[in-house]
Structure formats: C-alpha cells, structure tokens
C-alpha cells in the first residue's frame, strides 16, 4: 500500500515537472543581460583594430563613452544622446542617436562582438572599412 503510493507519487511528479518551463524569450533575455553588463559604466577605449593594424591607447588619453541606465549616452567627443540595444539577424547591436556639440544630429550603430562585466568589443563599418574597438571599464 505504502510502496504503491510512493511509486505513483514518484511517477506523477516525474511527469508534472515537464509541464512548466516551456516558454522562451530568447531575444529579450539576451538584450536584458546586455543592458545589465553595459549600463551605468564608463567604457575606455584600450585598443583599436582597423584591418591588420592595431593601435593601443593604454596609458594615453583615450576615447571614453558612458552608457547610463536611463538609456542616455555621452562620450569624450562631446556627443550626447540616447541608445538602445537590439538583436537583429543574430547581430547584437547598440543603436545611438546623438547630437554633436554643434547640435547636429548623428545616428550610428555598433555591433557587439562580445560583452562582459569589464570588457566590451564593438565593431562598426565605415565606408566598407571595418574597425574593431576594445573597451574596458578600468
């Protein structure tokens, strides 16, 4: 009697555990984790790779960009604006809409090659030339 109850309970629980947990929201979770890693930090450019040439900025004045939690951004070139992280065709991207110090509107897109808590690798294409930017939080 007792064994039977335990047996049925075990089998029942075995199947019950497969009912929940079928929903997925892959894109939303990827973007959410990206925001967590990106936001409220100042990112310093350490290396810039264009073609086969790599330039280091370590120990020198360098380009700096802030991404804040309220989805605003500012950089050391004086540009300020807003940003969003998007996942388009399996490419994780940062879309920036900003204004230059002279109030000219500018829009650009970075592709996130890799993002971590302390490291960020971005790439962008300008006139068919691809540039990879290596940032860290210091």
């Amino acid at each position, binding site marked *: *009697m*007792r*064994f*039977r*109850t*335990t*047996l049925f*309970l*075990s089998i*029942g*629980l*075995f199947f*019950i*555990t*497969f*009912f*929940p*947990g079928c929903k*997925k*929201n*892959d*894109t939303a*979770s*990827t973007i*959410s*984790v*990206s925001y*967590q*890693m990106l936001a409220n930090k100042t990112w310093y450019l*350490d*290396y810039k790779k264009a073609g086969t040439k790599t330039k280091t900025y370590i120990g020198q004045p360098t380009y700096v960009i802030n991404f804040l939690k309220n989805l605003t951004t500012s950089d050391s070139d004086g540009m300020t604006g807003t940003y969003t992280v998007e996942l388009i065709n399996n490419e*994780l991207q940062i879309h920036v809409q900003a204004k230059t110090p002279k109030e000219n509107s500018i829009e650009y897109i970075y592709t*996130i090659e*890799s*993002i*971590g*808590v*302390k*490291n960020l*690798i971005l790439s962008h294409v300008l006139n068919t030339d691809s540039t990879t930017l*290596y940032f*860290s939080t210091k």
Partner: protein
Amino acid sequence: MPSKKVLTIFLLSFFIHFCITLQAQNKSKEEMDKLYLNKKEFNIVKDMNEDFTSISHYVILGINQTKQNIAAGNYNSYFNYQLVDYNSTSYKPGYFIGYRNDGFYKEKIRYSLGLILSKVVSGTAYSNANNLPPFISEFTHFKAEDAFINLSITPLLKQLVFTSENAGFKFLFVGGPTFDIKLSRNSAANIAYNPYHKIFVSGKIGIEFENHSYYSLFLHYKHGLSSITIAPIKTTIYNFEMGILIKPSDLF
C-alpha cells in the same frame, strides 16, 4: 527560482501521501486487506507490493557540498565572463529535505527509495578557457549556473556491513542511481541557449549508521554519470551529502 506550481504540487503530494500513510496505519489489518484486494486494476503493483516488506518511513534531511567541472568546448555566445571572477574549485554548501522508504525486497535484499528536495549551491571549476590577448585573458562564453533546486528520486540497495546485537546499532553500505529533476529556472544569462538538461543521472554510494532504528546518520557521495548540460558543454557534478533519517512518528 523553481516553478511555484511544481513546488506546490510536490508539497501537496507529500502531505497527501503522509496523510494516507497515517490513515492506513489506523485501519485494522482486515480492513486494509479488503481495501487492497478490491483494487483489481493494480494487480501488477499488488504483486510488486507483496515483494516489499518491513517498510519503514523516514524524514531525511541534511546538508550537501557540491562542485561542478565545466568544459565549455567550442560554445559561443555574445557574452564573456572572466574566469578570475567565476572559477571556483571549492565545494559549496546546500541543504536537502525529503522522504525515504526503507525495507526488504523479497525478504532478503535491503533497499530504500527516497524523494528528496534539495537546494544545491555549487563551486564552478572551468577546465578550459578562451583567450584574446592582450585584451582579455582567460574567459569563457558560458556562465554556469551555481545554484539549483532539484527533486531527486533515489532508489538504493543496502548491504549490512557490521551489526552489534548488544549495542543495537548497524553499519550499512548503500549504493544506487539518483535521478535529479531540475526544478529551478535558468538565470537570465542562460535563458536564450538553455543549455541544461531537465534530468541528471548520478551514481550514489555511501555509509549509514543506524541506531536502534530510532535514527540513522549517513554520508553519501554522488557522482554525475551524465553531463547536466547539452553539447558542446560538458558539466559533471560531484556532491557529498551528510544527514539524518528520522521516523516521522518520533517527530510528531
């Protein structure tokens, strides 16, 4: 976090089972036999049931120490995690509570069948790393989950090693498989790829000290027999369990 629905069902089922057991204990032998024989649809179970005798019921509880070894292979993601922040070769403590049936199969073979709900916190030891010099040294694209809530089904065979008739205690060796059902959800970092299996199979061995059938103390070692993650990531889990078995009638 585990699904509230699953947890509620588990606790409710456990409570119902416990009530049925107590109710059955209050019936006379004749009443129980009559009830039992009326259930013709359970003939197979009935035959099996007759093979299991001298059944004792225990509440099982204790602490565990867990570590997992992770080989991420060529897994790739948008994210990088520096191993200096995530690598840990140590065992980490968790706890568990559950229910266990002990008895004899065909009056000769000692066995136990346990249903255990466990909170597992685990050290995460990565066996290989990615490098991107000079920018990032030693990182992984896969962040392993370091906390799980599992429901374990544990059938064990028990072998008497030593007994003292005068002192009334026994030492037993136990061994068998364990089927862990992962109830907790993945963290945000692992939702997209969902690299974890729902069920893990492990092998368990251990020793148990039984004192006058009042309580038992035990030390078990559990070794993952299958990877808890899907290819190309291979994750093996190692777990020590220390705890006590107490009869519910002694508690309530």
